[in-house]
């Protein structure tokens, strides 16, 4: 929303600088996203009188002598058809910037030109489009001699030395009243600590019964007022008006006298209006007099809108009907069949309120984001419907007179009274405002207060649809006086316990990065293609119905597929060797729901290792990383060459992978990937990884372990020839050591297999002297 500061200043006396005012609006009302400084936009543009206008033969041009308020006349060539002797026009002096181009990269500067090789032309007589007042390019603007004299600066006449605020609408979602200049100005008065003097006057119009308005359901339309205006003459739209200027500053465009009045009043009051062509309305309804019906659209109904789009109505759309035929999409846009045009005689002005819930659906379904629907979806109050329609009638009185008035009210806002104590106000804010200060703050913006001894009964004005509970009133006191005036205080507390999951993640992050691994974060959303490439079943994933793209449609079941995807990205960079890991959450449909009725959530740790120039066996590298990690976490682990069938295991090649066993329980899988998976991800042979249940790591990880600091007194190397697995050999060794009641630290040295027989060499360190019989027994394994 764009707000002109000059327009606000018509309603409020501002005792501070513009900069301070903008700061205060930001601090106490709404986020100001930007400020368009128009202080110099209309510099060197003057009101001038065309003293003589001579047609240049065989051209569309006119040679003009103009009075610019100086002694000498100035010559300017003008191409507009409406230039004539005696008129007042707007003249852009040589050297001035054409206002419509000020925000372009290269603003257009008017100079002194020679036209047709012989006529000097100084500056230009400007059209509305050049002055940035809409798109009208049919002629130059004419200025009302009642308003100005030759030589006046255009910006003084039309108050163009202005600043335009760009307001973030979102933070006013609950404040429909601020979507009109009057409401916004009332707030500005409030935050300046001033009372707002504008008095709301109720209407003098007397609704009759001749004009029929039927509302099918009070929930879709609280109030519908309509005025039939009969044409008695032409509205003279000869001169540039303040309405043109204000519409343009607010981001709208002058279009025609009737539309301009409805738009202007909407900007001023926040109440959108719509004008129907009376004759067309009656014709569509096939009745003698207009029969207005407000109802929900029916299935299959269609409507052609003002902008020529044809919409298939949905059943939550509210439609205005003539008889039973829809002629407008309520609150959103008028229909083509009753649109006003240059032949329009009488008109019907609609001023109504509609359900914001229905209009929200209309907005989404048909993609209509007009100024009107923006206001209606904030929930406009109904108190001023008839008053604003009357204001339109008054502004159009030059060409129209009121013939019929209808006012059907199904629901109206009642003022709400809230009781609140000044201790509650100060208690919640952390302030010590006096009762007097609080009362004044609230009264400034239209609240009526009764009360004594600190107990206040606060009655909200009709336009404040957002006040329901005492906290709403407390907000007003805090906000209008400035939250920045509340002194920050720090309550003191003991430190809290660490979160086990976050602490462990931090520890793992430190350990793995010290192992040369890289932590990555990948999206929770993956494609069905990625899931399939990894050998998982896409049906096991929760599916997003409004995903950004097919690439981001499924919620992941496991982390490894995402890491394989990133492994490819990094091999392409190229990075020759890396270990990437991630700790994040996954969901599998088959795990069902938890006790709160939401999908069971699992935290996983996964790691993938890839090298481009390694002919070795990647499995052992991944296993080594896992062993070293678990060792650092003081978790004892073993490996079993049998995989379970859970989704996490599915990318892994079962002949070259192992279940990770801790305390007799499988906590994950480590291994190489299926050939089909490697191929699908375009990755080379040296590729392996693991994926673990993080909650199990929390369960088994220990912060410290006992360290035996006694000295090693004996060291032996042992090589056995065997066809057994490494673990079977170690178990055998441990069995023999146990028999001798000897303990040893065993580390692998090498596995050598010249042909078929495997030689396993290990290193043993003893904390006691051992005799050779033990070694001889070990060598016999």
């Amino acid at each position, binding site marked *: 929303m764009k707000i002109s500061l000059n327009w606000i200043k018509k309603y409020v006396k501002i005792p501070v600088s513009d900069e301070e005012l903008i700061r205060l609006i930001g601090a106490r009302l709404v986020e100001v996203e930007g400020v368009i400084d128009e202080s110099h936009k209309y510099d060197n543009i003057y009101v001038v009188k065309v003293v003589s206008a001579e047609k240049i033969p065989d051209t569309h041009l006119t040679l003009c002598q103009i009075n610019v308020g100086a002694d000498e006349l100035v010559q300017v060539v003008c191409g507009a058809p409406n230039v004539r002797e005696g008129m007042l026009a707007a003249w852009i002096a040589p050297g001035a910037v054409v206002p419509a181009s000020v925000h372009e990269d290269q603003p257009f500067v008017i100079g002194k030109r020679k036209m047709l090789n012989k006529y000097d032309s100084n500056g230009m007589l400007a059209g509305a489009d050049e002055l940035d007042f809409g798109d009208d390019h049919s002629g130059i603007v004419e200025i009302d001699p009642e308003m100005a004299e030759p030589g006046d600066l255009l910006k003084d006449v039309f108050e163009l030395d202005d600043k335009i605020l760009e307001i973030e609408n979102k933070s006013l979602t609950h404040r429909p009243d601020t979507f009109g200049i009057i409401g916004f100005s009332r707030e500005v008065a409030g935050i300046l600590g001033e009372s707002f003097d504008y008095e709301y006057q109720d209407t003098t119009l007397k609704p009759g019964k001749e004009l029929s308005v039927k509302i099918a359901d009070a929930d879709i339309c609280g109030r519908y007022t309509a005025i039939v205006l009969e044409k008695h003459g032409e509205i003279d739209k000869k001169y540039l008006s303040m309405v043109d200027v204000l519409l343009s500053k607010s981001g709208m465009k002058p279009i025609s006298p009737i539309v301009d009045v409805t738009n202007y009043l909407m900007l001023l009051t926040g109440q959108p209006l719509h004008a129907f062509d009376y004759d067309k309305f009656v014709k569509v309804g096939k009745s003698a007099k207009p029969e207005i019906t407000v109802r929900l659209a029916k299935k299959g109904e269609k409507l052609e809108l003002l902008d020529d789009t044809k919409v298939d109505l949905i059943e939550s759309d509210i439609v205005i009907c003539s008889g039973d035929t829809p002629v407008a999409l309520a609150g959103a846009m008028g229909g083509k069949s009753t649109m006003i045009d240059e032949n329009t005689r009488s008109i019907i002005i609609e001023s109504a309120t509609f359900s914001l819930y229905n209009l929200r659906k209309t907005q989404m379904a048909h993609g209509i984001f007009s100024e009107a629907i923006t206001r209606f979806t904030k929930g406009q109050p109904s108190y001023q419907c008839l008053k604003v329609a009357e204001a339109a009638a008054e502004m159009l009185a030059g060409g129209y007179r009121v013939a019929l008035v209808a006012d059907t009210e199904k629901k109206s806002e009642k003022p709400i009274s809230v009781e609140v104590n000044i201790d509650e106000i100060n208690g919640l804010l952390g302030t010590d405002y006096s009762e007097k200060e609080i009362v004044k703050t609230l009264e400034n913006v239209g609240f009526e207060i009764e009360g004594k001894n600190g107990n206040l009964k606060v009655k909200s004005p009709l336009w404040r649809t957002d006040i329901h509970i005492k906290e709403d009133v407390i907000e007003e006191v805090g*906000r209008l006086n400035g939250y920045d005036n509340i002194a920050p205080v720090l309550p003191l507390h003991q430190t*809290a316990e660490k979160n086990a999951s976050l602490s462990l993640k931090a520890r793992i992050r430190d350990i793995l990065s010290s192992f040369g691994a890289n932590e990555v*974060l*990948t999206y929770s959303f993956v494609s069905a293609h990625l899931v399939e490439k990894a050998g998982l079943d896409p049906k096991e994933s929760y599916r997003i119905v409004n995903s*950004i793209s097919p690439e981001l449609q499924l919620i992941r079941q496991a982390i490894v597929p995402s890491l394989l995807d990133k492994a490819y990205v990094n091999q392409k960079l190229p990075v020759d060797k890396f270990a990437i890991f991630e700790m994040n*959450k996954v969901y599998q449909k088959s795990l069902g729901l938890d006790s709160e009725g939401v999908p069971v959530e699992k935290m996983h740790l996964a790691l993938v290792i890839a090298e481009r120039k390694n002919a070795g066996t990647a499995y052992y590298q991944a296993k080594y990383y896992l062993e070293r990690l678990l060792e650092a976490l003081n978790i004892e682990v073993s490996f079993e060459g049998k995989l379970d069938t859970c989704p996490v295991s599915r990318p892994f090649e079962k002949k070259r992978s192992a279940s990770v066993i801790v305390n007799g329980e499988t906590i994950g899988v480590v291994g190489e990937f299926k050939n089909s998976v490697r191929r699908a991800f375009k990755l080379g042979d040296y590729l392996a990884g693991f994926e673990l249940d993080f909650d199990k790591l929390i369960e088994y990880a220990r912060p410290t372990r006992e360290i035996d600091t006694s000295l090693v007194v004996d060291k032996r190397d042992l090589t056995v020839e065997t066809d057994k697995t490494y673990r079977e050999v170690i178990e055998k060794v441990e069995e023999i050591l146990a028999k001798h009641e000897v303990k040893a630290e065993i580390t692998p040295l090498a596995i050598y297999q010249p042909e078929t027989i495997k030689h396993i060499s290990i290193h043993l360190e003893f904390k006691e002297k051992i005799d050779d019989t033990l070694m001889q027994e070990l060598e016999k394994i």
Partner: protein
Amino acid sequence: MEELEKLKKELKDLNAEYAKIKEIPAEKRGAFGRELNAKKMALLDKIMKAEEAQYDMTVEPLDVTAPCAPNEKLPELYSVEQGSRHPLMVELDRVTSIYQMMGFDVMESRQLDDEYHMFDSLNFAKEHPARDGYDTFRTEEGYIPPAHTSTMQNRVLKAYKKKLDETGLISVVVPGRVYRNEDVDATHEHTFYQCEGVYVSESCTMGQMLGILREFFEKYYEQKLNIRTQPGYFPFTEPSLEFMIEKPKSLGGKKGDFLEMLGCGMIHPNVLKMAGIDPEKYHGFAWGGGIDRLVMLRYGLKDVRHFESGNLNFLRNFK
């Protein structure tokens, strides 16, 4: 092996079926052709999978208990020099540690939640336009990858209600990953991180909220800071504000250069009520803000898309 042979035979038979199309009446040929094509696609898919399986069968098993393969060297860790920690996670740890030192428990946020926690329990009226501001994703079942960590407020309040009765205080922060359906560019991601704060006591004030937030940011940026606020609107807080800090000098900030850091406010009585906490007795405040921005500011990063890129050329800068 046999399975694959069988499938290939089926494909051959199916291809032969196509010849019959001439004998079918013209009006039924379309349907017949479509049916055949569907069968063929399904069969080709099975054959591909069977071939992949056969390829997988050629794999040599290995001793998964061994430290290395025969005749290969024992594995070694990569150089510590090439290791890195994700900057978002490291900063998230810093953030939670500061809050923890200030007395806040830490609870992680969910990554898939429901309408009740995301909206209903936060005092959003049903179908209210305010729900649109969150650009939420939805699953087929109607679950929501949360668009804000406030999705945890109701859970925090319920989980700590007992502690509130015993000690008179709830003070919890909730970091987590959140999602918004919006176009991605240098400053917008559909996936990002937030941290929520929830504080409830009998006597808490907005002044305390401002005090806690200022303290946090001063600890985080390790310097004194000027703060500023701006009215905001959230259905779950009343009053609602936006909290800003003056850009720290150490990060090239100038006077008057304020940055929006988070949204905050006094917890709406309905939100307390829905968690079974008496809003006449207790008051609270809550806040939530993005982590990605904090980190970008701290490291002078210009493109938020790096964070989830998995690109090691970027990530290896963060030890």
